[in-house]
């Protein structure tokens, strides 16, 4: 029995942490009146009305599309640049390599406003404000830093001997990269891509500053739903569920690499 005690404890703790999520999902299925009913109702007749209303009446389909375009674009850029840089860093020895890593780390940790505010002014000057391009470009910065940092670890796991064989057989560096290292690091690429997608999808500060009417992403649109008392909480919770479902699914997909990704490759 004593052996089962920690297991029981863990289940209880996780259940407590999930209560807010359950409550959110429940609220998203409630009618306007039910969401306002006190005491809180845990059992009721569910309806999908809130989802229909936000997606079609409030145009959240568009915001979903915007978020998706930006996330995929930024991930593509980050994965291309990041995999090249990570490979180059991993297979090379030169002075300042450590410093370069700190630059990448810094690029990831800098407060968003330090980049987003000047980027806004620059984007206005170059007539790029409120376009997909500027959002993709900015999301790709921290995503590239992350991808480089993370993929370096995956390339370190690719045995050098295999590549050296390829090089000895007359492969160029690029050949060794594309034909040997990249395929062997494929699981790492998938995991990194998923993380980049999530970071871009979840980003609020850059999107808040750089997107206005035309390319507003989901987090910005969601943030604006908050209004004083009398708000349609059911609809807001429906949007919340739509916003977090993809990331949760993705998290399940990359479960094996979660620790590595979340710690930026520092803990394996």
């Amino acid at each position: 029995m004593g052996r089962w005690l920690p297991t029981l404890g863990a289940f209880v703790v996780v259940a407590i942490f999930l209560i807010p999520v359950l409550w959110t999902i429940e609220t998203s299925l409630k009618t306007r009146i039910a969401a306002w009913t006190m005491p809180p109702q845990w059992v009721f007749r569910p309806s999908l009305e809130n989802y229909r209303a936000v997606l079609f009446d409030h145009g959240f389909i568009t915001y979903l599309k915007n978020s998706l375009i930006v996330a995929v674009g930024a991930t593509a850029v980050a994965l291309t640049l990041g995999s090249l840089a990570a490979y180059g860093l991993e297979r090379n020895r030169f002075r300042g390599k450590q410093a370069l890593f700190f630059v990448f780390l810094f690029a990831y940790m800098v407060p968003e406003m330090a980049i987003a505010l000047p980027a806004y002014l620059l984007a206005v000057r170059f007539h790029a404000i409120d376009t997909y391009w500027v959002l993709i470009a900015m999301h790709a910065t921290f995503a590239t830093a992350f991808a480089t940092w993370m993929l370096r670890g995956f390339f370190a796991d690719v045995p050098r001997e295999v590549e050296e064989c390829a090089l000895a057989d007359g492969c160029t560096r690029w050949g060794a990269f594309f034909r040997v290292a990249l395929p062997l690091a494929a699981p790492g690429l998938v995991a990194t891509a998923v993380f980049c997608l999530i970071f871009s999808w979840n980003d609020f500060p850059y999107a808040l500053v750089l997107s206005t009417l035309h390319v507003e992403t989901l987090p910005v649109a969601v943030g604006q739903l908050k209004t004083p008392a009398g708000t349609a909480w059911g609809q807001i919770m429906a949007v919340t569920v739509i916003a977090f479902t993809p990331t949760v699914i993705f998290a399940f997909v990359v479960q094996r690499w979660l620790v590595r990704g979340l710690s930026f490759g520092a803990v394996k």
Partner: protein
Amino acid sequence: MTEVTTSVSLQGRRRPPALVSGLRRRLPLLGFILPAVVYLAVFMGYPFVYLVHHSLLHENYANPAEGSHFIGLGNYSVVLHSGIFWQSVLVTAVFAAAAVSIELVLGLCIALLLQRTIAGRRILIALFLIPSMMMPIAVGLMWRYMLDDGYGMVSYYLKLVHILGPSGLIAHPLLARPWTALASLVVTDVWEWTPFMALIILAGLESLPIEPFEAAAVDGASRWQEFWQITLPLLNRAIVVALLIRIADAMRVLDIVFVITGGGPGNSTVTAQLLSYNIGFGAFQTGLAFAQVLLVLSATVVVCALIFSRVSREGAAA
């Protein structure tokens, strides 16, 4: 050098000098790194240089007639003398310190619990991680709803047990007073990031070597001694990684503050990054916002560097 010349005479053809051949070997690899470096230099470095440069200028976008001129450290001086800046620093520091330390303690406990879990661990961890993978804005809205005085579940149950309400410990709505509002933000952050902390520490726990524990068992160490003298020191690395990430994140908190308190009541929960947004984007006093964001960034870097150097020293000693 002599070896090179002999090989040249043996093979009967000229070899490039060592430096050039070294470069030739490295050049393709540098070519791999270059695109990312150029990209970051253009899209992150350039805005950053712009930030530093314009933090030294007086500019007022709300009134372009004032023009733009160099004022040295004038913006910094204004920021350092403004009450709201120091208040935002205090709020951010209290928030970060409270949230991250609670997350560390809770995360450590939960990691130990998960380590001893003998069934359903994978699914448990996957479910447990949902809060940390969620969109922070969604987390904020979720808690804003639950904390709502009229329709919020948390407020309702706190009233039920007389913690909240006219006769309770807290007589006013949760988000209506500075300290309870800040505490609400801390609770939200703890809910969101404790799973992250626990997962990193759990990974650290699982990679610990087994020998020290066997030695401790032979020496008859109690579980308490074992935890404090073996487990915790060995976990150093994992804990520091988690701490650094969390501190850097907490110092730039924006999303949850934006939707839960909006910096209110009054300006009592305006965090550093919310302040730079308000000054820079709301009031368009970009010079001030830039100076402020740079000051906060330097503070973050110093804090993280201190933790990092302390730990690498300890690591070197071990």
